[in-house]
């Protein structure tokens, strides 16, 4: 690489200066947080791998390496979005505003897709060497430590393979320092911003929050979280990047990528819970506990238009507002440690491999001259490549490849050796889908170039192989290395099934003796990866990656097999077409081989040829079932042999013709599946499914095989890792398969997989009817992937419920109603559209507030006047309502046969320090036995005249349901409590135990029940199991916690009339010293107090004097009858001659709240005085 050193100065000095002053801009974790995480990784690794510890001598190098990866410009390559397989990509609309940048720059710079993903960056020596990076981050190494690596101070290449090389060469300090750079990249994958393409300059809540964790200020809970956790052990560095990036991308948001408008479908909350003031979206995590993924704040003061549609965020800017972010950190930091420790372990494994691989060291020890020659060769070969049309018509790769969803590179059509025995490399077009930026449809030039380099190397390699074959008298070469060549290049194939059946090299060989096991045909198929060619091995090692070891197949596969269902004949074989072409099965056959068979000799007896019109549409299925089997899906074709019989295992072969196979190396074998105990050699057998189970081929996505169940249910079944490993035996390793607990046969009528989700239902709205306790949902119909609306069904979820199951499932209409049994809460519902086969859309959310039946509810202690007028202090429950009865009439029973017309009874039960349980029935009018120690008793005067504490509060719907005798005597006294129409209730309360001293942590909840017995006429209350009388049935509960001390707002009484009357009759004034007097009469009312509890007071003074506050007197009314006429003698004010007065009136309720004072002037009538 020395020959390219001069290009390192291309970045102007001023650029470095700029970055030096902007060092915090796009970091993930802060430098010191990286140091902390790396330190923890070392600890965790050392605990789990005591025999290969990172010694104390090396510890600082690893930590410092992880810090220094953030040196200027390197950080731009620290992003990896596994969904779109891209590095940092900023939309040109944001990145290159035309008013700022020069026109030429805008026109020439392909801004959107240039930075390497960290996954590639970690292994791209070329990329790291191309630019000279400026070390500006201060080292933590001592001068003695620094000296040990000072010879490498100018190095810019801190790749994975360099770390290995340093170690192999004995430079352990530099190796570990370089490995620290890799750990940095791994740690960054636990920053959602860095896996969700969110550049977030300086405003990432997650990064700002995590800055607090450093070596000096560790997270004290981390050790606890790591208990019982293990390092994640994987085979390949790429898988570490993929898995970790997918974990943080799929499970967490970044600040600017909340919601599907950001281009990511995940994460979605599994449920929503209200905690304190906020709703939180939760993800279910059965292993480590559920965690919050967002907080839903109150609606903005300005309505919905301000922030996000649902006002969702990750952090609330106030004390305690970090619950979501702290949940993020607790998961992501733990993963960072587990994966980091795994990477160190992998590093030492790779070191051991490299030590035993002479090519590894040799390849790195090229002299300058060798490097120069190599570069020159590249130059020459590049020119030749251009001339010979390897990339016809496009000898310069342009970064702007518009409107691409995948890039197809036409490859070498034929490379001829000079030998008569030619190696024909028949190429298919190769898809390099992962490197395409799906959001911009632009190919990363750097990624493209990397792949191009790989391809170039492989082409050279293939050419070498061909020449090698030629020179070795046409012997095919075999390799023991599973490499990517066959995965990257799809070569040859099975014409009968529309393309290459994996990676095959068809050697058109005229010397049939040269190839063992050759068929009669001259076309033999051999395994490229079986080559022992050293040069091949070297290239394979350097280009190996997780995404390259598996690729989607381009032939029909056996996708699911059931050998026994409810009945012994319930067996089926399902096929899947993972290609975009319809494939005919006309010449195909399915062949069965018992597990006990040692050869395929008798396979002709258990063979079934496909029908001539049998075919499978792209990405679709075909179902073959036993003729007597019963399934949820109709079979496309039946067969008559048995897949199980008395055997404990078998193999099923899909053959490209109708001839029984002679052995399991049959060249026409398209695919096979093997399960249970299988004797015949050479097959890879999976677990034997038991009754009702099936074995199912896994799904394939982004270079990985995934379980085809749960969230991957609709990804198809195209995991087939046999491509690289074995050409002669199709079907692949058992790891391609998994057990499915409940089989799921799919036939040609099923929808293709994978496919687009249905569109989310729009205009989702909810209305509420308090009279029927029903919610009415309405939404617009959605479309499935094909635009069809007729086959859609819908599910509705209560996001506030603890269960994640839908509350309404599989309705085909766009309106539906739901009877609810909880009031006093905000409901958040979501609706999802579901296509014919069960693929769900994104959710659409709506919310509605359902008020409780009671309001202004209080639970507190206060001095007050009880119903008998006694001044006491006690615990109280009070509440108001809008009208009486405040519960819906006869919702649970219709004595008249017509809802809403029958007066009856209602019952309230107050629960103490527990959520009101949803009991279908009360026991008569009482809470169930098991609940009676959890209730609050209320004291009231019943219709029967008994003042006592009751364990439930019964209301008569009207006065006629309140009398003495029978059930009518149990409700509260209608006359006393309800006749005034106050719309308010107040009761003394005590716990079931008699406790009446409550604290602020005590609370109550309420349940509402309606009468269901035909009373009083009815005589048939149903006695349920356990002797419970089902008189009252649940209407709803109110789970609101009404805490003790929360006193209701009370209204003051209002004086509605006040009059004064002068009494002069002699027969009457004798009661007051025979002097005329003034009687007062006034009336007050109180909206939330019984008027009988009001206290009336009066005051007065002579005209010209002032009111004496100490002179208020209680106005007790007193009447006398004189000569048959009733006179009022109290309250009275004695009159003095010719004196004018001012009289004052006021009223006080049971809590001492005063009415306004009414003042009435009274002019003494002289004439009357004279009488």
């Amino acid at each position, binding site marked *: 690489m020395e020959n390219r050193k001069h290009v390192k100065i291309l970045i102007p000095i001023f650029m470095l200066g700029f970055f030096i002053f902007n060092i915090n801009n796009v970091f993930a974790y802060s430098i010191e947080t990286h140091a902390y995480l790396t330190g923890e990784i070392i600890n965790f690794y050392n605990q789990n791998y005591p025999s290969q510890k990172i010694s104390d001598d090396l510890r600082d190098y690893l930590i410092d390496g992880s810090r220094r990866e953030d040196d200027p*410009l390197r950080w731009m390559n620290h992003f990896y979005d596994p969904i779109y397989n891209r590095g940092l990509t900023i939309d040109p609309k944001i990145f290159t505003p035309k008013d700022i940048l020069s026109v030429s720059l805008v026109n020439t710079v392909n801004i959107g897709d240039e930075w390497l993903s960290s996954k590639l960056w970690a292994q791209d020596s070329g990329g790291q060497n*191309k630019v000279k990076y400026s070390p500006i981050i201060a080292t933590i190494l001592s001068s003695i430590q620094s000296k040990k690596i000072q010879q490498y101070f100018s190095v810019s290449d801190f790749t994975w393979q360099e770390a290995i090389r340093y170690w192999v060469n004995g430079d352990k300090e530099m190796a570990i320092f370089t490995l620290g750079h890799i750990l940095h990249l791994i740690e960054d994958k636990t920053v959602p911003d860095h896996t969700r393409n969110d550049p977030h300059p300086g405003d990432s809540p997650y990064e700002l929050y995590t800055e607090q964790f450093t070596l000096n200020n560790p997270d004290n809970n981390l050790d606890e979280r790591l208990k019982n956790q293990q390092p994640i052990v994987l085979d390949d560095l790429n898988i570490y990047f993929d898995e970790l990036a997918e974990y943080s991308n799929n499970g967490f948001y970044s600040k600017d990528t909340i919601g599907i408008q950001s281009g990511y479908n995940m994460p979605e909350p599994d449920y929503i819970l209200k905690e304190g003031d906020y709703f939180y979206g939760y993800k279910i995590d059965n292993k480590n506990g559920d965690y919050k993924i967002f907080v839903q704040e109150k609606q903005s003061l300005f309505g919905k238009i301000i922030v996000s549609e649902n006002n969702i965020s990750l952090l609330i800017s106030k004390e305690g507002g970090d619950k979501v972010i702290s949940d993020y950190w607790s998961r992501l930091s733990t993963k960072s440690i587990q994966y980091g420790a795994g990477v160190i372990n992998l590093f030492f494994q790779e070191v051991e491999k490299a030590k035993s691989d002479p090519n590894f060291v040799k390849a790195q020890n090229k002299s300058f001259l060798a490097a120069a020659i190599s570069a020159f060769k590249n130059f020459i070969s590049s020119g030749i490549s251009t001339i010979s049309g390897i990339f016809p018509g496009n000898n310069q790769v342009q970064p702007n490849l518009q409107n691409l969803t995948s890039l197809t590179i036409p490859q070498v059509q034929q490379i001829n050796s000079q030998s008569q025995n030619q190696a024909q490399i028949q190429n298919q077009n190769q898809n390099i889908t992962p490197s395409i930026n799906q959001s911009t449809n632009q190919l990363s030039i750097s990624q493209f170039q990397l792949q191009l380099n790989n391809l170039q190397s492989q082409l050279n390699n293939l050419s070498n192989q061909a020449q090698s074959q030629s020179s070795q008298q046409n012997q095919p070469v075999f390799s023991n290395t599973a490499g990517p060549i066959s995965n990257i290049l799809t070569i040859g194939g099975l014409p009968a099934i529309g393309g290459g059946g994996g990676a095959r090299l068809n050697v058109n060989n005229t010397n049939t003796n040269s190839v063992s096991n050759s068929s009669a045909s001259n076309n033999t198929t051999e395994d490229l990866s079986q080559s022992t060619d050293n040069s091949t091995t070297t290239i394979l090692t350097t280009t190996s990656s997780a995404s390259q070891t598996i690729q989607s197949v381009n032939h029909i596969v056996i996708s699911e097999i059931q050998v026994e269902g409810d009945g012994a004949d319930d067996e089926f074989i399902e096929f899947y077409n993972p290609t975009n072409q319809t494939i005919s099965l006309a010449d195909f056959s399915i062949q069965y081989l018992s597990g006990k068979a040692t050869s395929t000799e008798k396979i002709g007896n258990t063979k079934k040829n496909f029908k001539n019109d049998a075919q499978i549409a792209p990405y679709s299925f075909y179902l073959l079932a036993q003729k007597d089997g019963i399934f949820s899906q109709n079979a496309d074709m039946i067969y008559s042999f048995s897949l199980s019989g008395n055997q404990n295992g078998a193999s099923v072969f899909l053959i490209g013709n109708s001839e029984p196979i002679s052995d399991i190396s049959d060249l026409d074998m398209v695919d096979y599946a093997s399960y249970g105990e299988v004797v015949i050699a050479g097959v890879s057998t999976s677990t034997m499914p038991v009754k009702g189970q099936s074995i199912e081929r896994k799904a394939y996505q982004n270079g990985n095989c995934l379980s085809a169940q749960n969230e991957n249910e609709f990804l198809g079944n195209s995991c087939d890792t046999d491509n690289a490993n074995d050409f002669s035996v199709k079907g692949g390793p058992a790891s391609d398969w998994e057990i499915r607990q409940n089989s799921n046969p799919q036939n040609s009528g099923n929808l293709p997989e994978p496919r687009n989700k249905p569109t989310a239902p729009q205009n989702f709205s909810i209305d509420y009817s308090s009279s029927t306790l029903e919610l009415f949902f309405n939404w617009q119909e959605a479309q499935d992937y094909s635009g069809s609306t007729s086959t859609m069904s819908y599910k509705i979820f209560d996001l506030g419920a603890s269960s994640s199951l839908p509350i309404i499932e599989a309705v085909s209409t766009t309106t539906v109603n739901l009877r609810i049994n909880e009031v006093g809460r905000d409901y958040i519902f979501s609706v999802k559209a579901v296509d014919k086969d069960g693929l769900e859309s994104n959710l659409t959310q709506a919310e509605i507030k359902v008020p409780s039946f009671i309001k202004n509810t209080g639970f507190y202690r206060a001095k007050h006047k009880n119903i008998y007028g006694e001044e006491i202090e006690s615990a109280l429950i009070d509440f108001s309502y809008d009208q009486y009865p405040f519960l819906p009439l006869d919702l649970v029973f219709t004595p008249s046969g017509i809802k809403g017309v029958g007066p009856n009874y209602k019952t309230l039960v107050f629960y103490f320090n527990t959520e009101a349980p949803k009991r279908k029935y009360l026991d008569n009018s009482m809470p169930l036995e098991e609940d009676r120690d959890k209730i609050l008793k209320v004291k009231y005067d019943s219709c029967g005249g008994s003042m006592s504490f009751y364990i439930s509060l019964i209301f008569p719907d009207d006065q006629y349901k309140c009398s003495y005798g029978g059930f009518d005597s149990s409700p509260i006294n209608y006359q006393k409590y309800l006749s005034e129409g106050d719309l308010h209730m107040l009761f003394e309360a005590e716990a079931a135990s008699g406790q009446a001293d409550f604290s602020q942590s005590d609370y109550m909840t309420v349940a509402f029940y309606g009468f269901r017995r035909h009373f009083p006429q009815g005589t048939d209350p149903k006695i349920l199991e356990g002797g419970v009388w089902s008189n009252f049935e649940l209407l709803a509960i109110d789970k609101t916690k009404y805490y003790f001390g929360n006193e209701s707002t009370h209204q003051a009484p209002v004086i509605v009339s006040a009059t004064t009357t002068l009494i002069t009759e002699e027969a009457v004034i004798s009661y007051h010293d025979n002097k005329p007097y003034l009687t007062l009469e006034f009336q007050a009312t109180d909206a939330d107090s019984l008027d009988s509890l009001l206290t009336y007071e009066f005051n007065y003074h002579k005209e010209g004097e002032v009111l004496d506050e100490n002179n208020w007197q209680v106005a007790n009314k007193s009447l006398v009858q004189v000569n048959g006429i009733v006179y009022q003698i109290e309250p009275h004010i004695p009159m003095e001659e010719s004196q004018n007065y001012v009289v004052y009136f006021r009223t006080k309720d049971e809590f001492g709240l005063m009415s306004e004072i009414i003042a009435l002037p009274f002019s003494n009538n002289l004439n009357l005085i004279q009488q």
Partner: protein
Amino acid sequence: MDNINSIKAKNKYRKFALGFLGIIIVTAGGFFVWDKYFSPSAKYNRQLQRQSEAYMQWEERHKQAMKEDTYGGKTPEETLQMFIDALKKEDVELASKYFMLDTNEQPYNAENYLTRKKWENALMKTKDEGKLIEIINVLSKATPAGSVTEGYFGFEVRNNKNELIADISMQLNKYSNVWKIESM
């Protein structure tokens, strides 16, 4: 003859050497030019340079906008009070300036990037509806709710039942060192 032959041989050798040297020079020169200007590596580096410059300008634009955003107080309380005062004067243009610039760089938000359009529109709408007084009333009851981490601060408004009515999130603009309203 020998001399002539010797001279001829020397000339021949010289010509050959010069020719060979010429081929070497031309080849090396070609290689140098190709490597510097036409090789994928050279193109990549030029591309990287442009990329970096473009990125720098983008960041510079971001930083400059933040620096110029000087509306606000030295404390969260100051900024909130300034905002309320502006609302009382019904000066929604001024009031909107107390909000943080929108820094969401995602493509779907491109038209709002480094603007306050959302807030400006909302304030204008609220004013048109005659509801500014309601906002003022709510904000006047705001009480400090502490900080979740450095650079953040919150206010909240609760009713007499201690139920949360509103949150006001504040954020320090580190470039201009004034507190801005992040959301409310």
